């Protein structure tokens, strides 16, 4: 049993529970190369957990995760680590190494996992910093950065090894509209120019519709709807339409 070639990553029947609490109850979805799949859902619904499983940080109780035709749940740690080098993850809290400067953070995967020499690494770091618009922040420590900057550094670090798949955990949560737009633009740019596949977990409606090529809704541990953005917006699924309409109401009341 393996994923079909055009699918970059696929989850089949993934179940996860902690003690008696069922977090995921049979999740199935797949992402083809160069897609941006946005996964939405209520807070605490297991969206971030889903990303941890995709990255192999959590092992599901049942089901399989195929990445490039290999089942991540069955790989040994060294093999899993090898697979992880083809993925990048942007964490909700950025998760930068607090004792290292921005440059060292971005350089960490390059130093550890590539055969590049110091000057090549430095030029990659410069390039990634420029991409996220933080050319002058290289020598700062994560504690000296704002939330938005930390997230952008997290993105630069995730992109350091030129991954094929980037996972975003709430990339624009807690950011001002300008920073939020900047991150959305980066995701679109990655998709269009660098042919990167992304999975974005968010409940910021604007960014979701801005970046998505396909959208999925996670509820009660299952994907209850998976569709193109237009179809998703017009869905008559009661939970999804309630989710979308409460957001629109909220936006309207602000105006």
């Amino acid at each position, binding site marked *: 049993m393996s994923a079909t070639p055009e699918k970059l990553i696929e989850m089949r029947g993934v179940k996860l529970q902690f003690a008696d609490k069922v977090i995921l109850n049979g999740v199935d979805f797949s992402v083809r190369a160069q897609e941006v799949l946005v996964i939405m859902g209520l807070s605490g619904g297991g969206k971030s957990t889903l990303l941890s499983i995709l990255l192999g940080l959590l092992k599901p109780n049942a089901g399989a995760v195929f990445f490039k035709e290999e089942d991540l749940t069955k790989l040994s740690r060294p093999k899993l*680590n090898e697979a992880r080098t083809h993925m990048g993850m942007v964490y909700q809290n950025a*998760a930068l*190494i*607090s004792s290292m400067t921005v440059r060292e953070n971005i350089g*960490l*995967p390059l130093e550890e996992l590539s055969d590049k020499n110091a000057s090549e690494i430095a030029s990659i770091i410069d390039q990634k910093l420029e991409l996220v618009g933080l050319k002058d922040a290289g020598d700062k420590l994560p504690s000296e950065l704002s939330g938005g900057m930390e997230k952008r550094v997290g993105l630069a670090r995730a992109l350091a090894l030129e991954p094929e798949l980037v996972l975003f955990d709430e990339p624009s949560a807690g950011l001002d509209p300008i920073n939020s737009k900047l991150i959305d633009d980066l995701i679109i740019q990655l998709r269009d120019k660098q042919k990167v596949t992304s999975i974005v977990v968010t409940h910021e409606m604007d960014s979701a519709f801005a970046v998505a090529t396909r959208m999925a809704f996670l509820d009660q541990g299952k994907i209850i709807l998976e569709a193109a953005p237009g179809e998703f917006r017009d869905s008559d699924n009661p939970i999804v339409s309630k989710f979308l309409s409460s957001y629109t109401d909220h936006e309207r009341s602000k105006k």
Partner: protein
Amino acid sequence: MLQELSGMVWMGRETASEIKERLARHRSPFRLKHFFYQSNRVGVGSVPMVILLSVFVGLTMALLTGYQLQRFGLVTLVPAVVSVSFTREMGPLFTGIVLASRIGAAYTAELGAMTAGGEVNAIEGMGIGALRYLITPRILAIFFLTPCLTVIAVISGILGAAFISSLLLQLSYSYFYDQVMTNLLVKDLMAGIVKSFLFGAIIGTIACYKGLTVRGGAVGVGTATTSSVVMAVSTVIACDSFCNIFIVTFFP
């Protein structure tokens, strides 16, 4: 307890498999820079405390044994008693206790804060192999530096004893030196050094394991640090007893 033991065995096995994989790809399993940084912290940083503690312990031991032996007119035995017991026992044990509280606590606290802040997961998620990257330089540093510090502890303990002996027990430095040289055997030195390698490995493993299994934020880091020091100190003392029984039985 059993769960912790199996956790540590698992940690050791997984770290070894990551190191093996790195070596198979002809990459260094850890950065020398990190190893030297940790060695500096463990070794050089602990020297003043080890010297201070050992001098006072050596001094006290010489004084107390001296007063007891004076009653039997055997005060001349002080150099032999102190040097042998310091080399075999006090040196490694006190170094172990100093390192468990100074370095073990630091390892647990920093790895614990990294775990609680999601940094360890981030390193793991990049495919770097968090166990190999974080643990190897730390455990190797404490493993190789504990015996070095033990040697320093032994020398300073004996110097402390010699000082107080010349001051209060009327034993000259040259007599003390001759007695130490005559009575101290290579066997005693070996026993102390072998034990201290073991202590270093125990402290490093416990401290890293406790740090990487932290749960519950800032309070969790505090609890883990306390429990790491308690566990490391008691394991070191227990292990010391077993080593002594073993050495006395098999290498009399």
